[in-house]
């Protein structure tokens, strides 16, 4: 192994340690976890996972989370695409100010807005629905999606648009058959970022849901405190939250490096 690879190797080891610890704990009985330190589970058990896959309060948490994250990703990318196109191709009144204003919404501390959000979504009758969380997460995901997509579109020469229009393409046809495939990497990266930030956000998701749309991370907090401190169960639930993310990142892994490169030169 080359000497220079020591840095990334050490870094990955550092990243994996807590994750290993979580996984190891999820295969231990709660008794073993509390009785003292063991590096490897002494008695392997799948009970923690069995509880999660058989108890509806647990597995519905995952279904709820995946549902609102998917809705949010679709909405964010769909509305961000035309907006990013406008920002990258045209000058219009207040474009720069608008772009920065969009960014500022990513800075709004979620802790500040939790209560007003609750009032707002209760008032329009969306409280405790997947749509409420999906819409609320648009606050920070849309600006990021516009930002990323604008970067990618800026890397596509404008001659492409002009040639297509000269060839008689209508705008919608040009956009879907020529432009979108060209920036597909960018769409992948934007969707990944939306997925990631919506999947991990809890404060708003928890505030806007009660029973029907409760996210998995909130289920964990509640179940853990009501059933004593079931560390093994908690660890198994935590370990399972990594899987959807890992699957998504596996699919976009090539876009992440190559994709950004395309847009931001």
């Amino acid at each position, binding site marked *: 192994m080359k000497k220079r*690879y*020591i*840095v*990334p190797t050490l*870094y*990955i080891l550092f*990243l994996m*340690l*807590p*994750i290993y*610890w979580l996984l190891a*704990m999820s295969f231990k009985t709660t008794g073993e976890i509390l009785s003292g*330190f063991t590096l490897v589970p002494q008695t392997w058990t799948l009970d923690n996972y069995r509880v999660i896959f058989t108890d509806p309060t647990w597995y519905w948490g995952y279904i709820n989370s995946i549902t609102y994250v998917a809705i949010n990703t679709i909405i964010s990318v769909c509305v961000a695409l035309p907006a990013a196109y*406008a*920002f990258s*191709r*045209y*000058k*219009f*009144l207040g474009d720069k100010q608008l772009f*920065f204003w*969009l960014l500022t919404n990513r*800075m*709004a*501390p*979620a*802790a*500040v807005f*939790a*209560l*007003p959000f609750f*009032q707002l979504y209760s008032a329009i009758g969306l409280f405790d629905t997947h749509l409420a969380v999906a*819409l609320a997460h648009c606050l920070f995901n*849309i600006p990021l999606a*516009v*930002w*990323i997509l604008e*970067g990618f579109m*800026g890397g596509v*020469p*404008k001659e492409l648009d002009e040639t297509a229009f000269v060839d008689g393409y209508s705008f919608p046809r040009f956009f879907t058959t020529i432009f979108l495939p060209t920036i597909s990497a960018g769409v992948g990266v934007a969707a990944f970022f939306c997925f*990631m930030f919506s*999947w*991990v956000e*809890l*404060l708003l998701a928890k505030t806007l849901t009660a029973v029907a749309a409760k996210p998995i*991370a909130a289920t*964990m907090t509640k179940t853990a405190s009501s059933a004593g401190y079931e*560390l093994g169960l908690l660890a198994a639930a*935590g370990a399972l939250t990594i899987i959807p*993310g*890992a699957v998504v990142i*596996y699919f976009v892994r090539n876009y*992440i*490096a190559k*994709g950004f*490169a*395309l847009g*931001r*030169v």
Partner: protein
Amino acid sequence: MTMKSVNQKAWFFVLPVLVLVAFNALIPMMTVVNYSVQETFGDNLFFWQGLDWFQQILTSERFHNALGRQFLFTGLILVIEVPLGIAIALSMPKKGFWVPVCLVTMALPMLIPWNVVGAMWNIFTLPDIGLLGYFMNHTLGIDYNMTQSPFAAWVTIIVMDVWHWTSLVVLLSYAGLVSIPDAFYQAAEVDGASRWAVFRYIQLPKMKQVLTIAILLRFMDSFNIYTEPFTLTGGGPGNSTTLLSIDLVKIALGQFDLGPAAAMSLIYFAITLLVSWLFYTLMNRDVQQVDKPTDH
């Protein structure tokens, strides 16, 4: 850069984004502004309070302390994570089997829900049963207990955040690095440029755009951080890790002092905005200056 044409109809493209974001941003913001100038008694009794809450917050020592801790935290995070992220990105392989392995494993921490991250690190650092806590106390003999020592708590939240978010800087810098054509390096080699010169005049300028995103995102997110430190220590021991968001939630939901909490939110938001705007304009101006000579 391609020339942009003036087209006021572009507004229609931006409209859906505007409507969705404004709905989520303006209405809650108006609620917060409303609370910040009123005093509430019971359900629907509101009294005009003027700017008293703002004055109260701005002169309170509690706010100054939380703000100080917040700046210390964010400053440390940026100083550690940005150079570290760049260094890791520079030493990562450019092609081959290890690239996707590195990317996937490095992105994992970011994909774990924030309260799970906090809970995970909480158990990870427990002195008797956690891997890190046990190792520090029993193998190295260092007295490490974040529920008792403020210093240990600080080290823990910093290390946790470095663990959680350095990969964001790595991924973005790496993307910037991959975009540099080989010809640049070949030319540098012909000129006999040193390793440092290659970094300073080729790699850094090419990374600048993605680094702007990385630094801004890291600033915004670390300045607003709530769930992870709250799950980790609840702001303790004492108030030692009570960052701005945690303090805010304590006032708003713990004491139900909506007026002061709203005033504090607005001051908090204004500070975030100001610092982000400074970063944004400084880095954007820099990008243009550096990019001009190499523009083709």
